[in-house]
């Protein structure tokens, strides 16, 4: 190839690369081949939204316009999604880097899962006296809350959800497994919980393991594990409040995920596809009762399987407090309160048959995001 031709080709390719957003934009307008609206390029997950910003002299002077334009453009330029996928695929394939922790066999863990399981941070050592005191105090608060709610005729139960590492240990990257002699806060919690008057449900005891408890592709427990956990918990609730129960029937299977079985994998936004078989139980309402109770549910995303079962089978109304950030009321209307518990209508929320608090084993130290402490104080004030 002559030097001249080689140089021209090189220049053209580089120019093509830097003009690619403009070319994608033009193609998007005039063809159906490529472009932002063509479905395939869409990234999965949630993203902050950016606006171009208002162009005015004052906004220009303060660099406000430039800043918002920079943000808008860097998150929205045409062809960006494809470049992001290439970026993710490159890093995933070469360095096993992605969203969360990437283990062997394309196993995805939430960042906190191996950190908790292997206690990589000294401040989370369950042997530390300060941490044990925190757990002891929290358990006492749970007991106190239980007793107060009993007086009000409200059934209170706490359930814990598992850490994925326990079920997919071998796939965790080696660097987490280096022994450091620390123990988990959850281990101390589970040793002590029976010493208190607390209704406690360990969801791990409900897993039949006939199907995977976790998929390599999911951050959360599998659909079937969620269903087993929810059905068992509802069964426990039915012993204390009038609520219909659910039995799990035939297992359906599919190559497509049921609900959020691939949430961890989806967030990688790579070109590589996963070939798994996913499972879901058929749900049947058993022992239907006429009562339609109300349940106040507080916790993280791991309790949403319970909420889903309650609502889809019309077992109860649910007021769901997600962490300490948002309340989803019975009509599923989100009320954002961002930690300001006083904003919530507690008269209404305490007009409930049961209160269920979910905590993942990894976040015991979060102390239910302040929910238990707040409710204790609130009930003390109310008398």
């Amino acid at each position, binding site marked *: *190839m002559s*030097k*001249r031709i*080689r*140089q*021209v*080709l*090189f*220049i053209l*390719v*580089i*120019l093509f*690369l*830097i*003009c*690619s*957003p*403009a070319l994608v934009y033009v193609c998007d307008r005039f063809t159906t081949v490529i472009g932002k609206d063509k479905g395939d390029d869409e990234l999965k997950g949630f993203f902050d939204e950016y606006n171009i910003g208002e162009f005015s002299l004052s906004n*220009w*002077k*303060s*660099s406000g316009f*430039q800043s918002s*334009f*920079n943000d808008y*453009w*860097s998150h929205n*330029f045409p062809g*960006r999604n494809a*470049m*992001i996928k*290439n*970026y*993710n695929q*490159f*890093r995933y394939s*070469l*360095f*096993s*880097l992605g969203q969360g922790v990437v283990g062997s066999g394309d196993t995805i863990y939430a960042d906190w899962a191996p950190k908790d399981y292997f206690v*990589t941070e000294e401040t989370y050592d369950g042997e530390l006296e300060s941490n044990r005191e925190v757990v002891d105090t929290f358990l006492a608060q749970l007991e106190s809350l239980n007793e107060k709610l009993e007086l009000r005729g409200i059934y209170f139960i706490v359930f814990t959800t598992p850490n994925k590492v326990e079920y997919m240990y071998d796939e965790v990257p*080696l*660097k*987490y497994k*280096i022994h*450091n002699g620390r123990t988990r806060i959850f281990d101390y919690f589970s040793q002590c919980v029976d010493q208190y008057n607390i209704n406690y449900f360990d969801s791990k005891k409900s897993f039949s393991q006939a199907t995977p408890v976790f998929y390599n592709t999911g951050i959360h427990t599998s659909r079937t594990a969620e269903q087993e956990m929810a059905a068992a918990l509802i069964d426990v609730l039915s012993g204390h409040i009038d609520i219909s129960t659910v039995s799990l029937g035939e297992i359906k299977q599919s190559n497509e995920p049921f609900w959020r079985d691939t949430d961890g994998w989806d967030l990688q936004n790579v070109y590589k596809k996963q070939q798994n078989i996913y499972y879901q139980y058929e749900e049947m309402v058993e022992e239907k009762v006429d009562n339609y109770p109300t349940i106040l549910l507080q916790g993280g995303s791991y309790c949403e399987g319970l909420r889903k079962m309650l609502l889809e089978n019309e077992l109860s109304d649910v007021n769901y407090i997600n962490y300490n950030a948002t309340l989803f009321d019975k009509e599923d209307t989100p009320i954002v309160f961002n930690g300001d518990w006083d904003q919530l209508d507690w008269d209404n929320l305490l007009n409930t048959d049961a209160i269920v608090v979910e905590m993942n084993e990894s976040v015991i130290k979060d102390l239910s995001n302040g929910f238990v402490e707040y409710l204790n104080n609130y009930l003390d004030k109310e008398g």
Partner: protein
Amino acid sequence: MVFSSSVFLFIFLPITLIFYFISSAPLRNYVLLLVSLIFYSWGEPVFVFCIIVLVILNYIISTLLDNNSNLLIKRLLLCIALCMDFGVLFYFKYLTFVISNIHRIPGISIPQLNIVLPIGISFFSFQVVSYVIDVYRGDVKHQRNILIFSLYLMLFPQLIAGPIVRYKEIEKQIYNRTISLDGIYYGLKRFSIGLSKKVLIADICAQVSAMTFGTQTHGLINWVGSFAYTIQIYYDFSGYSDMAIGLGKVFGFGFPENFNYPYVSTSIKEFWRRWHMSLSTWFRDYLYIPLGGNRCGTYRTIRNTIIVFACTGIWHGAGWNYLIWGLWSVVFLVLEMGKWGQVVKKLPRGLAWLYCFLVVDFGWIFFNSETLSGALQYIKNMFIFSADDGAQLLFNINAEQIWAMVLGTIFMFPLYDRISRRIKHKVVLDICQITIAFITLVYVAGSSYSPFLYFRF
């Protein structure tokens, strides 16, 4: 606007190239001036007016200098220009630092000012001062066209982070430059190499150094952190210089080289001949030599070296740690002037290299720490080892970061030049280059905002 941002790469650069190449030759300088003003005002919408005023005032002073033969008046004009240009630099860059140090004196209280440091002011100041001095000395003829004069000072490729270009280096090129296929090819190649250095090596090594500087880490990870910073600063700065030189080449300009593989040096003296050459030659020509250089005895030579490197240090930043960094080099430069220099020359090349590299590496610790005490604590922590150092390192550093440091280490030596000379089919190199450019752009899209280290100087 930084060169590694998507706004620059996908909007500003393509539009600039289009307008530049469709313009007729006489108009191209004005196109460049206009886009340079837009480029700078994007990041500094207010200070751009200060720059314009400085350009006008320096133009007036230079005109008067050029038209005057009275030595006293010329000296007075030069003083005015230097006071003005360095005064602006002092105000924006050093006044806050001076006030905060005065506050340490008991009984004195001066209101603290909230002065924002405009990007590129250090480069701009030194470039305009070099011009005025060169006009004063008669080394160059003053540029009568104020727009062309503005173009020289504000040309966007080298405006915010160098290299510092002397007017005599591009005087002829402003009116008489050749735009050729070769130039565009080499320019784009150089630009993409610089971008890759910045995005694929410097920015990733920055993640490692950020883990250690300003934190409580110690032992092995601190050594790795300082090494990562040594790689980061070189690739960040030389990457930017490559991009500036590359863009200049595309437009037909030949900017001076700024780095010549400084980390192959086997002495500190050699290091400073290879690192940030446009700055070190500036200090040589406008400070060191006027002070007498090395031609007035040992003590004066040492004095001059101390002055130059103290100024070099504080040019980089308003802080005691920068001054210490500058003086750190002086210690070894002075030692190398004496018997130690003879010893270093006789050392096996590998040992001499190790000596120089470690001195430079430790120097960067002062440079990168926010305070002097922070730097000393960092160095102290480097020698506190524990049994789980290896585990800590393994836990905190990922494969991508390791590769960035490995590649950074490999290419700090002039291997690319040697490899490219040996490859017969140059199209192979071009394909590799394009692949790396694509990966770099993909990283630009995927990575978060990352400013250059130097453009606050």
